[in-house]
């Protein structure tokens, strides 16, 4: 019976005051067996990681490591209600991301002066920001590109909604204004609390995503350079990234960053490796474009968290450097094509076609799936997934070697979030309405991240345009990393109120309308 999509009320797995759910979903024999087999694989990845004494030592040293206890639950959140191809797509990407983060953690602790203290390894490490395109590392396969902020700040919020509250409080305790964006605030808090692994030959910081991230970078680089003796390069990518006259400057920044890395690591830029990565970047772009094209039809296939979480990881953090992601790109496309041919649907009913715009709440990333399961709102695409679709030069010729600096600059300028929150009203406001038309959407869900000044300034203009075009515009306020300001239920209530009062609709799955998940991971 539960084989059918939507046959189980998904809200019944929540328990008041509990961090976790009462049980996992029964999806029919075939899909439950598949989900079970993937759970075993995830447990294997986690077991292999924690069995190393070095990683156990790190688990007991770094507070943010406690959040990794919730890894299987994160997967459960993103697979809620999924069956068939959609369940397989979700696992293909989530399992790979888990494996990739486990490897990242393992390497960080290997070189960390407090944990593994492998000095030879540490000399090969280049630290990069959390929200930084790693394009500049595409030609350094002999070096390790590691981000400390990704596993200490970004991933924990996806695992446990409360994970960053401690670090945000620390940052504020040391004088940071409480209305700063929680993302750079939490990153700064980790550094202030001496909770960032210390390793690396050098670091590259980038002015992604905004002045908020510049603030966090300042706090972090002070400690890195002045105390840990790790030199830091500030890669200042232009914010008006669509203007032609900034591109030469942007390319020069890339040349300078490469020269800096060569100087501090002794490594030499490898053009063969670069163009190999460029091919994989283009493959990812083509696949994403195909998924988006499918989403413009009546049978969208790769959308919601399946699109958002994977695009963020693949586009920004991987940037063609890990061949395993190219394999998953192909696998996802194959699954999507198969489901498309059969005219399959992810939920039992599609009522509205929505574009999700603005910076999404990280403590409630599975909200996209909730929209679908509870109200039948199909999140066709989201702002963070609408990144560059331009293919970059991938054949090694003298002209393309010069072009490559411009391509890396373009990717860096068009990093997720900053390519929309900065660059003028065209990229943030005008293009949204182009996408609404292209995707034949009747609804826009606009995240209003209350600490993101870049977006909040245009509130009135969004409303004017929505009124002009007759599109249902739903504002959803949140505070990115801080569920104490607006809880997950607070987020849901904004949609519930709109759907009941303006749209006069009843939910598809009423058990999901109000969930007791305040204490939940």
């Amino acid at each position, binding site marked *: 019976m539960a084989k059918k999509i939507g046959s189980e009320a998904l809200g019944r797995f929540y328990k008041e005051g509990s961090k976790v759910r009462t049980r*996992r979903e029964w999806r029919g024999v075939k899909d439950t067996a598949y989900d079970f087999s993937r*759970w075993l694989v995830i447990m294997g990845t986690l077991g292999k990681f924690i069995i190393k004494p070095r990683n156990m030592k790190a688990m*007991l040293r770094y507070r943010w490591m406690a959040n990794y206890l919730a890894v299987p639950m994160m997967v459960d959140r993103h697979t809620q209600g999924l069956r068939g191809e959609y369940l397989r797509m979700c696992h293909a990407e989530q399992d790979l991301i888990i494996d990739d983060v486990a490897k990242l953690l393992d390497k960080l602790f290997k070189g960390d002066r407090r944990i593994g203290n492998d000095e030879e390894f540490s000399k090969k490490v280049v630290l990069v920001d959390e929200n930084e395109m790693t394009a500049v590392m595409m030609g350094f396969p002999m070096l390790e590109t590691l981000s400390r902020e990704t596993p200490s700040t970004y991933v924990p919020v996806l695992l446990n909604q409360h994970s960053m509250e401690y670090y945000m409080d620390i940052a504020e305790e040391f004088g940071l204004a409480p209305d700063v964006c929680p993302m750079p605030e939490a990153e700064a808090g980790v550094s202030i609390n001496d909770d960032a692994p210390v390793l690396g030959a050098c670091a590259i910081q980038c002015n992604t995503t905004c002045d908020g991230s510049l603030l966090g970078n300042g706090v972090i680089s002070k400690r890195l350079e002045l105390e840990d003796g790790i030199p830091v390069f500030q890669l200042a990518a232009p914010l008006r990234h669509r203007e032609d006259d900034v591109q030469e400057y942007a390319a020069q920044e890339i040349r300078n960053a490469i020269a800096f890395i060569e100087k501090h690591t002794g490594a030499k830029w490898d053009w063969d490796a670069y163009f190999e990565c460029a091919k994989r970047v283009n493959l990812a772009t083509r696949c994403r474009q195909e998924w988006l094209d499918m989403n413009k039809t009546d049978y969208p296939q790769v959308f919601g968290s399946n699109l958002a979480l994977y695009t963020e990881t693949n586009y920004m953090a991987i940037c063609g450097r890990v061949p395993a992601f190219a394999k998953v790109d192909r696998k996802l496309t194959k699954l999507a094509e198969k489901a498309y041919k059969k005219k399959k649907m992810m939920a039992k009913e599609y009522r509205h076609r929505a574009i999700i715009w603005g910076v999404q709440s990280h403590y409630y990333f599975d909200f996209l799936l909730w929209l679908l399961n509870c109200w039948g709102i199909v999140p066709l695409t989201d702002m963070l997934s609408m990144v560059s679709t331009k293919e970059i030069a991938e054949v090694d010729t003298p002209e393309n070697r010069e072009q490559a600096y411009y391509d890396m600059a373009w990717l860096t300028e068009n990093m997720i979030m900053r390519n929309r929150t900065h660059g003028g009203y065209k990229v943030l406001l005008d293009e949204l309405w182009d996408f609404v038309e292209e995707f034949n959407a009747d609804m826009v869900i606009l995240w209003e991240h209350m600490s993101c000044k870049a977006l909040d300034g245009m509130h009135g203009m969004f409303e004017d345009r929505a009124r002009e075009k007759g599109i249902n515009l739903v504002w959803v306020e949140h505070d990115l990393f801080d569920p104490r300001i607006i809880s997950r239920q607070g987020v849901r209530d904004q949609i519930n109120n709109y759907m009941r009062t303006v749209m006069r609709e009843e939910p598809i799955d009423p058990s999901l309308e109000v969930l007791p998940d305040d204490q939940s991971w």
Partner: protein
Amino acid sequence: MCKKCKCCSKLPWWSKLLIATTGIFGLLFTVYFFNLDMKLTAMMEPWLLKWYDHVDRDKHL
């Protein structure tokens, strides 16, 4: 293994393997289905958080 009837020792190797595999499968599936893995780790979290409070740190701006 039952001492009185010694029936287990008479079983062929493949049926012992089958019983063991089924037992392990049943156990793991119970853990999976009733979310026992997450229930256990949820119990560990408060203990870990208390532990971190005692770790020495050079906390400053």
